[in-house]
């Protein structure tokens, strides 16, 4: 701002004026004691000076932020709520400005007792799987309440609170269209599956589902559905063909339970289904491990939107077992002959597997006793004679030698290890009898497994004092539930004789404290299944597993190969390395120091 400096001081002496203050409020004041000016000989003239200030400089500072962008999603339940709701005027707010305080503590029940607030101890969240790519879908899963809260919700009643790892299993299955629940036997795969299905049904994601299981397990599934999802309509596909056809065509809601055997016969019905199932679950999915088998083909032909496989033994023999299962779960995910690291990478988002050691730290212990018995002299003679003759015979066959010939000899020798065919002498039985005495004395029950009904019959005759029951392929299906109930409830029945085939899956026998493997199965997974009939959730005491092995025989040689198979399983699921992938033809021939004619080809045999 230009200022006029034509003023003088009161004593008429030239004065110097200066502008002070800020640009908005200038003040003019006389400068006193400016000694330099008063001492100048020529005086000082005051002149008008243009300060050169055209005005205070302004700087524009943006005060507003750029518009805030948002990403949002309205979930179906929200849309539904919005559509249902009429839009009357909003109720005006109260106008009081008081600051009252209301005490809202615990809810009080009608009977005056204070309810315990529902604060979950654990918090299990549903995480979207990798293959869910839309943000809206991922948010939908992330924003679901913790499963513990859903369970605490009084609109869904459950018989008892699941374990934390079971919540994890449900959280894993819930968002997945493609999943393998591969928990070790006895950890509750059935319950986790049913609970997840129940949630999906309740929220309208699934209206119609099909469950395929081995025939002996149908009643088990029916019972578990009644327990964990009593409101779900169940339809069991059974009976004559005309009835099954009608059911496939007309059961349009709820859960259909079919067994593998009838499913293969009903393949034409599957082809005629127009609307795909919202969910298809296959139990004991190792049934479809053979990629080129009919069962695999038929199961994979089920029209479906979601595919879940349940198995305690995703790998029984080789990693190709997984390939078969994934043909159903996620076709194209795995290819035959893939390397183990690639398989691990490809399946890790689809498979969940927990072992008892990992999750059931309070489960009673499972104790193994390897009963290495020496054959009786009679057995030893028979064994040596059979082996000698057998090997000579195999060598004589030369080019005509096939793997069936070798298997026949193996079976013959294993049966001699059980009972001497000439005298009936049995070192295993002698040991078993002593152990059963102890079992009976302690008031506990025992399961005895063998792979041959002939052996089971022999045991039945010799174990009459223990009230043996039988559960194997020769027992009609309709009688089997009754056998289990009798074993459970009749205190005079201490022993049940089971075949690996009929008794190794799906049964709950946790009241049995002893398991005897009278002879060994071809792969360890089936043995583990058998053992876990007793060692599972609900087991009230330790489970003692006795594995019989005739020392110095074919059983010992097979056992060493089984151990290698365990290593294979660990390589895929636990990251260990493995040298061999299974029982090859070469190894089977090697049991008798025979050389396989075409040594370049390895084929899975067992």
């Amino acid at each position: 701002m230009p200022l006029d400096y034509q003023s003088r001081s009161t004593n008429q002496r030239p004065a110097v004026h200066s502008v002070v203050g800020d640009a908005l409020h200038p003040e003019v004041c006389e400068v006193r004691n400016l000694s330099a000016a008063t001492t100048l000989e020529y005086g000082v003239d005051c002149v008008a000076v243009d300060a050169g200030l055209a005005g205070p400089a302004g700087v524009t500072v943006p005060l507003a932020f750029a518009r805030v962008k948002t990403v949002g999603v309205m979930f179906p339940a929200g849309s539904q709520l919005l559509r249902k709701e009429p839009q009357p005027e909003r109720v005006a707010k109260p106008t009081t400005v008081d600051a009252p305080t209301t005490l809202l503590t615990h809810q009080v029940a009608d009977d005056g007792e204070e309810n315990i607030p529902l604060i979950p101890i654990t918090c299990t969240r549903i995480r979207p799987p990798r293959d869910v790519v839309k943000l809206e879908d991922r948010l939908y899963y992330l924003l679901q309440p913790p499963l513990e809260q859903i369970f605490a919700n009084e609109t869904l009643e459950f018989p008892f609170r699941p374990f934390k790892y079971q919540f994890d299993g449900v959280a894993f299955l819930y968002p997945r269209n493609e999943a393998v629940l591969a928990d070790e036997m006895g950890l509750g795969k059935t319950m986790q599956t049913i609970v997840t299905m129940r949630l999906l049904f309740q929220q309208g994601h699934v209206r119609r589902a099909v469950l395929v299981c081995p025939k002996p397990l149908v009643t088990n599934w029916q019972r578990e559905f009644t327990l964990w999802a009593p409101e779900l309509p169940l339809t069991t596909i059974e009976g004559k063909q005309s009835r099954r056809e009608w059911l496939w065509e007309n059961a349009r809601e709820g859960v259909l339970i079919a067994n593998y055997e009838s499913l293969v016969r009903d393949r034409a019905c599957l082809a005629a289904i127009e609307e795909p199932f919202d969910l298809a679950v296959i139990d004991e999915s190792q049934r479809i491990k053979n990629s080129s088998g009919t069962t695999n083909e038929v199961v994979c032909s089920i029209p479906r939107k979601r595919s879940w496989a349940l198995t305690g033994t995703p790998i029984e023999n080789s990693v190709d077992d997984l390939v078969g299962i994934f043909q159903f779960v996620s076709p194209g995910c795995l290819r035959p002959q893939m390397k183990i690291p690639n398989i691990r990478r490809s399946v890790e988002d689809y498979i969940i597997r927990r072992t008892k050691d990992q999750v059931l730290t309070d489960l009673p212990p499972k104790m193994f006793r390897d009963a290495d018995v020496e054959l009786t002299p009679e057995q030893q003679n028979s064994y040596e004679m059979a082996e000698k003759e057998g090997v000579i015979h195999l060598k004589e066959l030369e080019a005509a030698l096939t793997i069936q010939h070798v298997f026949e000899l193996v079976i013959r020798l294993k049966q001699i290890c059980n009972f001497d065919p000439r005298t009936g002498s049995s070192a295993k039985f002698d040991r078993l009898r002593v152990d059963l005495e102890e079992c009976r004395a302690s008031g506990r029950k025992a399961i005895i497994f063998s792979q041959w009904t002939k052996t089971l019959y022999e045991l039945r005759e010799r174990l009459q004092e223990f009230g043996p029951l039988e559960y194997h392929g020769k027992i009609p299906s309709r009688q089997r539930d009754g056998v289990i109930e009798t074993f459970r409830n009749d205190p005079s029945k201490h022993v049940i004789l089971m075949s690996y085939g009929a008794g190794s899956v799906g049964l709950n026998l946790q009241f049995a404290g002893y398991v005897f493997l009278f002879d060994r199965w071809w792969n360890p997974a089936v043995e583990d299944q058998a053992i876990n009939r007793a060692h599972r959730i609900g087991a009230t005491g330790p489970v003692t597993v006795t594995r019989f092995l005739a020392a110095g025989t074919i059983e010992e040689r097979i056992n060493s190969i089984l151990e290698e198979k365990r290593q294979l399983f660990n390589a895929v699921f636990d990251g260990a390395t493995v040298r061999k992938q299974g029982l090859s033809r070469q190894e089977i021939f090697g049991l008798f120091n025979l050389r396989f004619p075409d040594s370049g080809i390895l084929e899975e045999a067992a």
Partner: protein
Amino acid sequence: MRFSGRLAGLARPLRFPTLEELKVSKPLPAIGFVTALEDENHGYFGGYLVLSLLGRPLEFHCTTPVQPNQAQRILYGPTLRAYVLADLIGQTLLAKSQLPVQAVLTDQREMLGLTLLSDDIVACIESMPTVDSEAEPTDGPSLMLTNYRVFGTPSCLWHPEAIQDVLQSLASHVDVMEPFERIRAAIREAQRITDPATDSQHGLADAA
């Protein structure tokens, strides 16, 4: 412009309400939860989740990062954070929402500025202090809910009785602090998906 209770009293509506304005209808049996995360590199991310009284998600919105510049930091000074959370993030999120709710809960006191910007009942929820003396006095309305304290600012016009039933109903199904965890997880996910280059999962921190 939101269709407030005062406008509702006009003798004749000026025009038909838009979908946005339908929010002013009778509150649904739902509760809103609003919170924000702070990331030192990207600024603030806000999230708003509407839950049914069973705790099921009905609607969700989150913001892209809001980053104050240096001038704004200087000009807003100590009020910057409250301004960003309430005026910018909270107000925007509530405006985007289509579902009218019974109340909006936040776990950040700075968000209570929404009270002056919104017709919704806005309340802050905090864990009950373990020692009585630690409880900060509030001049606004407040109520106790299980282990939590729900309160508003003195400018809040809501009465505790107006929301006590609905909060009690929600609290019987849901830990009322838990939904904020969901929001934070969803914000991280949205940020990761929409801007993978700035995947700041590890950088995002609770603004509280």
